[in-house]
Every structure is written in structure tokens, then in C-alpha cells.
């Protein structure tokens, strides 16, 4: 059915973080939010469109903000949107239980001179606490329509839609709260100056005057950029004339707003006779306790780590088998029957389908991780974890929340890049991702397993543990270096609101998981798939020649002298294994097998046939569910992501002939510190752009080269071989 749309309205949802804006928009539009990025930054932009009474309502979920004096990039986005895009209506979403705090932003939004409506969200929690609010008096005092809502249940949404439409149509601008007469007088003068000099450029006059009076850096910079005028001089005389009344003008203006809010709240809010017990305080006594807090945190993170990898591993194996076994095989057979050239079949099987399969193998991993991170975030625990870890992380110049991506990095660096989204500040995210690359991911384990089994069998566990610890030590060293150099100007302040504990809804969790996973498949997936085709070309072209005469073999022979200081440059085969390792660490052991000419027997189905094999795939898919459930509940130790089950003895013998114990150690250290795979490159490009990716690539490759060289050379000085 085609709907007739007579008019469109742009409606911005603004409010403090964690007040349920997204859930409210979901409930209003009865659809999942469309997610993109705000132009030029990696902050998520969420929006939805709905038709109501033949009017198109474009709902924009602005990032959570505490004030319109921007402190974070999110707050800057919120303010710029309101000033530049000029929505038809602002819906100010308020956590009703936290009325006094929320109203600080409300007053600033009113000052923007845009029609407004207040949604008193989380009304159910407010009532459950025994509080009462005189809504008509509250609405009258602010001159703004007010609706009580509960986002997750949709309570009040019909009323909200009606009020939104009415307010947008009427376009009535609310009356701002007046300041003391002396301030108002100066504001009036300043407005005239701004008008005369035409500084406003579409920005509300009175609002700009107030910001100049507050010496708001952001507004001063904007005017400087647009007009080349030092606007602080414009407001200087007005500020000076107020100095005798208000020695600290900024604080006085802020206090004036706070007094207005306190008086209003005292008038309209009726607290309960006896304050109900606060569940959050009780839980915090355990989770933030000096003795139990850290063990509980480690237990929760262990659970996240274990569940992410244990639940996803059976699905990863299934997708790997489905693409590389079933789909690739039948595509190959189909092409063969059509008489397609062998080269094309190999390209499609190993390059295209292998690439697509690799992208999709990350999907279960990411979905599990996103689910668990969303649970931690939405329940309110993530902020507490950051608080707990901040004391430790701060010493190395990292934010408390950085602990989460760093830990996830031990499993797989790709979801770890995305897990860095838990950090609010882009600088902290960039720094965390740079040092996270030194966390040894699961895909590197087969390399350690092979080389320690061959050269350090007696001390295998200690050597592997030592490699992990070396990765951590290098990460800490780089964190300190980066904080003192590249990110010097941005030592983060730790001010964070710890929201009350809440049980997240399934709808909210699913929305979060799906949006992020879809974004990964579309953006990072493209880079990964193309890289896999490139890798196929390296390993296979010219087609049909021996390994040493392929592009890879030739490149390895040319590159081999570069790795002489690391001790493994004498053998081009070792270097040939390193090169695909840039693409995926899983390929290092496999490539060694190929270039050292170790034969392995490929499995072929006993009874080939499309229908039985398809049935087997379906059964395997069902088994993956069972295995995921069993793995999640059964084991205590996380399942490592090892793609090969056992190491062939012929490969061990060939490796022993190619490496010495010392060069093997240097080889392991080089792979430990090298960026995990091309998928991480795709993820970092997706999150931070090519330029920053170049920087990460430079420091990881440089560190891997230098540290592995030091290991080999120091070993030689100590008389090791």
C-alpha cells in the first residue's frame, strides 16, 4: 500500500547518555534504527523514518550529551547538528529518576530556540521508587509539552507521536529561563553587536551571545574561522562589566541554572516518605569492593572470553567446512563439467570462495562478542569495569575501559578492534588499538605449537607463556611511548557516570548485534575478500610451477637477506611463510608445509553426491549448535582457535632442517609482534581510516623486526645457537 505523505519533519532526540533514546525511537518507529557514521568521524549515527498521520517523521538519535559546551566528539556532533541541520523539533529524553541532573541539558536545549518536547523516559522505574511528579506544573514551568514514556515497553509512545506531530506543526519556540537583570542587559548589547557584525550565520542570536559571554572556546573558534575575527575581544567589555557582580562569570551562570532547576524540582517533585533501598548500591558493594571487585571482574571477563570463543568455534568450523569443503567442491565440479580452465576453478575455489568463507567465519565470533559486550554495556557493568581497571591502566597512559579490547585481542584481534568502541574518546580508541596489536591472537598459536614442539619440547608451556608476556610487555612499552609522543596532548580525564544496573531487553541486544555485524560484513569484509584473492595469486601464479618459482617463492628469495639479522633469512622457505603471514597467521604453518614440500592427504567424501553432502552439512550445522552449548557449559578453559588438529612429523623434520632453536625463537617473536592478519587491517581501516592503519602497520612491523633481531643477536652473544 502506498502512503500519501503531505509533509516531512526532522526530529532530533537529545539527552544524557543511558537515558534510553534508541529504545524509545525503536518503540516509536517499530523498526530497527538505520546506522551509519556521522560525517568524518567513527561515531555512530542512528536514525529511523516513520509515517504518522500522513506526515513523514525523520527521527535522528543524537549521541548522548551532558551539555552543549562540547567536551567530547559526541557532544560536538550533537551541538553541530542542532545548529546546522536545524531540526523541526527536539525531543529531549530524560531519565525521570534523575530529573535534576537531566534538566541542566534541558535548559541549554531550550536556549537553542528550537521547538521542543520532553519525554520523561523510564517512568516505570521512577514510579517504582515511590516518587510523584506534577507533570502539568512541570510542563507549565518550562513552557514545553511533556509526555511520560517507557522505551522498552512502548508505554506512552502513542501519546508521544501525537505530541511530536503537534509540536512540530505548531513550531512554538519555548521561552528560555531568564538570567539576572545585569546579565540580560549585557546579553542584549551583545546580541546587537552580533547582529550588526553578522556573526550569527543562521545560529540563534541569543544563544550565540550567551556562549560568547561564557567565553565558549568552540563558538570563538567558529567565528574566528568564518570571519577571521577574535570574538573574545567582542565579548571582553561585556564580561568585564559583569566582573564586579560575578567574579567567576561562567560558574555564576552555571549556578543560576542549577538554582532554577533545584527550585523547580522542589516544587514539582514529591519524594517518597521513606527512600526505597537502592539495588545498585547493594550490587556495587560486592562488585566494586576492595577485595571482591577485581576477582569478580576477572571472572566476568574470563566468562566473556570463554563464551565468545567456545560458542563461536563450532560455527566457525562449520562455516569453514561449508565454504571450503562443500560449496568450493561443488562449484569446482560444476565448473569442471562446463570445461572451465583449472586456473579459473582454483581462483574461484581458493581465492573468491576462500575469501568469502574467511569473512563469514568471523561473523559468529563477532556476534558472540557483540552480544556479551552489549550485555555488559547495557546492564551498567562496563562502566564499573572501567572504574576498577583505571587505576592500573592509567599508569601506562591507557583508559580503564581499554582492558576489554586488550583482553579480547588474545582471542582474535579483529573483534578486539571493534571492542575498542567501548571507549568514548577516539584518541583512547586509537591508542588502544595500536597496542592491542601486540596481544598474541589465537591464530598465532599453531606457529608456537609447531616450533616449541620441534625445538623446545621440554619447556613448551614456558616458552609459549613467555611469548605472551613479551607481547604484553611490548604493548605496555608502546602505550607509554605513544602517550608521551603522538597522543601527548590528550591525557584523558576520567569522569564517568556509572548508570544504575538494568536488565537489557532482547530486542535491544539483537538490534546492537545485528547492526554492528552487518556493518562488518559490508565494509571490513570487502577488504578481507579482495586480500584473499591477492594472496591466492601470490601462492599460485604462475600456475603449475614449483613453489620456488611462484610469485611468492620469487619474492621470498628477494626478501630473504632482509631477515638475515633475525637468523632465518638463510632459507627462502622461512621467508615465504612469513609473507602470507602478513595476510593471515593461520597460513604460516600451512605455507611452510607447501614450500618445504611436505605432502598431506586431502580428505574426499566416501560417497560423493550433492544431496548426501548437503544433508551432512545440515547435520553438521545442528551439531555446531549442540557443540556450542556443550562447550559453553562444559569446559572451564577456553577453546583455542587452532585450525590444524595435529602437526605432521614430516613437517617437524623439515622445520628442524630449516631453523635453529634460536632462529625459531626469533621467527616466533617476529610473528608474535607482527599485525595478526589482513582482517585486522580491514577492521582498522574501517574504524580509523587508511592513514592510521599505516601508522599501526609501521609500528607493529618495525617492532617485530627490531625485537626479533635483538632476540637473535642477544642469543648469539650469549652463545645460543
Amino acid at each position, binding site marked *: 500500500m502506498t502512503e500519501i505523505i503531505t509533509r516531512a519533519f526532522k526530529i532530533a532526540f537529545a539527552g544524557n547518555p543511558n537515558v534510553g533514546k534508541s529504545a524509545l525511537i525503536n518503540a516509536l518507529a517499530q523498526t530497527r534504527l538505520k546506522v551509519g557514521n556521522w560525517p568524518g568521524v567513527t561515531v555512530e549515527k542512528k536514525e529511523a523514518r516513520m509515517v504518522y498521520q500522513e506526515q513523514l517523521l525523520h527521527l535522528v538519535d543524537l549521541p548522548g550529551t551532558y551539555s552543549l559546551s562540547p567536551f567530547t566528539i559526541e557532544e560536538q556532533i550533537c551541538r553541530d547538528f542542532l545548529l546546522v541541520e536545524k531540526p523541526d523539533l527536539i525531543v529531549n529524553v530524560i531519565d525521570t529518576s534523575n530529573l535534576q541532573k537531566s534538566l541542566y541539558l534541558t535548559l541549554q536545549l531550550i536556549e537553542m530556540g528550537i521547538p521542543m518536547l520532553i519525554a520523561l523516559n523510564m517512568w516505570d522505574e521512577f514510579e517504582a521508587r515511590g516518587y510523584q511528579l506534577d507533570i502539568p506544573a512541570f510542563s507549565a514551568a518550562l513552557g514545553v509539552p511533556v509526555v511520560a514514556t517507557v522505551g522498552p515497553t512502548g508505554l506512552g509512545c502513542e501519546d508521544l507521536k501525537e505530541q511530536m506531530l503537534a509540536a512540530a506543526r505548531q513550531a512554538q519556540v519555548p521561552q528560555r529561563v531568564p538570567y539576572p537583570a545585569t546579565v540580560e542587559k549585557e546579553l542584549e548589547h551583545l546580541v546587537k553587536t552580533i547582529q550588526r557584525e553578522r556573526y550569527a550565520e543562521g545560529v540563534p542570536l541569543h544563544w550565540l551571545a550567551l556562549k560568547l559571554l561564557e567565553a565558549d572556546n568552540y563558538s570563538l573558534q567558529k567565528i574566528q574561522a568564518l570571519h577571521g575575527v577574535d570574538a573574545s575581544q567582542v565579548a571582553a567589555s561585556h564580561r568585564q562589566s559583569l566582573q564586579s557582580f560575578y567574579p567567576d562569570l561562567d560558574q555564576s551562570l552555571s549556578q543560576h541554572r542549577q538554582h532554577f532547576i533545584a527550585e523547580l524540582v522542589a516544587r514539582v517533585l514529591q519524594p517518597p516518605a521513606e527512600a526505597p533501598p537502592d539495588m545498585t548500591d547493594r550490587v556495587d558493594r560486592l562488585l566494586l569492593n576492595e577485595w571482591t571487585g577485581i576477582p569478580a571482574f576477572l571472572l566476568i571477563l574470563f566468562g566473556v572470553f570463554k563464551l565468545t570463543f567456545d560458542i563461536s568455534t563450532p560455527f566457525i568450523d562449520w562455516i569453514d567446512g561449508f565454504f571450503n569443503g562443500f560449496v568450493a567442491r561443488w562449484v569446482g565440479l560444476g565448473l569442471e563439467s562446463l570445461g572451465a580452465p583449472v586456473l579459473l576453478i582454483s581462483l574461484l575455489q581458493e581465492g573468491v570462495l576462500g575469501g568469502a568463507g574467511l569473512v563469514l567465519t568471523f561473523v559468529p565470533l563477532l556476534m558472540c562478542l557483540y552480544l556479551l559486550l552489549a550485555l555488559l554495556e547495557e546492564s551498567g557493568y562496563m562502566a564499573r569495569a572501567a572504574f576498577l581497571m583505571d587505576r592500573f591502566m592509567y599508569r601506562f597512559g591507557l583508559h580503564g575501559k581499554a582492558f576489554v579490547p586488550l583482553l579480547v585481542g588474545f582471542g582474535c584481534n579483529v573483534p578486539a578492534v571493534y571492542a575498542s568502541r567501548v571507549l568514548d574518546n577516539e584518541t583512547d580508541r586509537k591508542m588502544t588499538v595500536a597496542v592491542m596489536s601486540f596481544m598474541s591472537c589465537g591464530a598465532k598459536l599453531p606457529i608456537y605449537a609447531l616450533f616449541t614442539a620441534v625445538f623446545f619440547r621440554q619447556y613448551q608451556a614456558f616458552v609459549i607463556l613467555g611469548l605472551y608476556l613479551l607481547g604484553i610487555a611490548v604493548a605496555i612499552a608502546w602505550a607509554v611511548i605513544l602517550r608521551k609522543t603522538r597522543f601527548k596532548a590528550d591525557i584523558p580525564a576520567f*569522569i*564517568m557516570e556509572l548508570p544504575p544496573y538494568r536488565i537489557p531487553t532482547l530486542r535491544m541486544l539483537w538490534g546492537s548485534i545485528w547492526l554492528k555485524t552487518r556493518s562488518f560484513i559490508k565494509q571490513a569484509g570487502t577488504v578481507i575478500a579482495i586480500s584473499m584473492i591477492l594472496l591466492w595469486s601470490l601462492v599460485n601464479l604462475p600456475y603449475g610451477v614449483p613453489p620456488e618459482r611462484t610469485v611468492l617463492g620469487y619474492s621470498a628469495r628477494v626478501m630473504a637477506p632482509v631477515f638475515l639479522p633475525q637468523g632465518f633469512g638463510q632459507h627462502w622457505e622461512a621467508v615465504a611463510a612469513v609473507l602470507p603471514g602478513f595476510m593471515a597467521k593461520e597460513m604460516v604453518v600451512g605455507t611452510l608445509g607447501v614450500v618445504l614440500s611436505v605432502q598431506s592427504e586431502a580428505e574426499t567424501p566416501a560417497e560423493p553426491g550433492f544431496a548426501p553432502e548437503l544433508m551432512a552439512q545440515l547435520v553438521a550445522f545442528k551439531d555446531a549448535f549442540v557443540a556450542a552449548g556443550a562447550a559453553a557449559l562444559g569446559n572451564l578453559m577456553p577453546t583455542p582457535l587452532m585450525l590444524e588438529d595435529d602437526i605432521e612429523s614430516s613437517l617437524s623434520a623439515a622445520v628442524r632442517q630449516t631453523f635453529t632453536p634460536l632462529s625459531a625463537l626469533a621467527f616466533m617473536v617476529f610473528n608474535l609482534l607482527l599485525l595478526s592478519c589482513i582482517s585486522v587491517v580491514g577492521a582498522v581501516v574501517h574504524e580509523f581510516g587508511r592513514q592510521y592503519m599505516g601508522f599501526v602497520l609501521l609500528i607493529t612491523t618495525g617492532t617485530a623486526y627490531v625485537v626479533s633481531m635483538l632476540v637473535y643477536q642477544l642469543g648469539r652473544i650469549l652463545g645460543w645457537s
Partner: protein
Amino acid sequence: MLVGTGPLTRTMAANAPQSIAAFSEGACVQIRALSGDRQLCLRLESMGLAVGKEVQVLKNSGRGLLLKTEFTRLAIRLSPAFMLQAVYAGHA
């Protein structure tokens, strides 16, 4: 020395603003001044931690503090560039 640990020290400290880090866990204090980085001060005010507000110290681990004002819990790391002055107002 931590104030709020005995009746005498509580009385003595009642009117002398000092860094909020000096108050023990459970103490209720009144914010008297926010000093240091202007942006940080504005940020704290917008988060509900304004001059005159009564605040409960939930956790105090030296540099890291967990404060509660009404239903808002704020985790803060103090630094030389950013200080919170408060006076003792009671014990929870």
C-alpha cells in the same frame, strides 16, 4: 589523615574545605569549589556535581573516587589539573 573518622575531627573539619580525596568512604560532603581545567569543571557541573551539591563518597581509592549525588554515581580520577573542594556534611 582521613577526616570523618572521629567526632572531633568531623567537628574540626566541618567548615574547612579540602580536597574531596581526603574524605573517607561513606562520608557525605558538600561541594564548595571546583577548580582547575575549565572544561572539566563545566563537564562536572553538567553531570550534576555542582557547587552546593551534597555528595556521598561511595569509594575512595586515593586518586579514584566514586561519588553519588541523588541517583547519579560518578567515577572520577582527580589530578593536579583538576580538584574538588568539599566540606564534611555527615555520614551515611
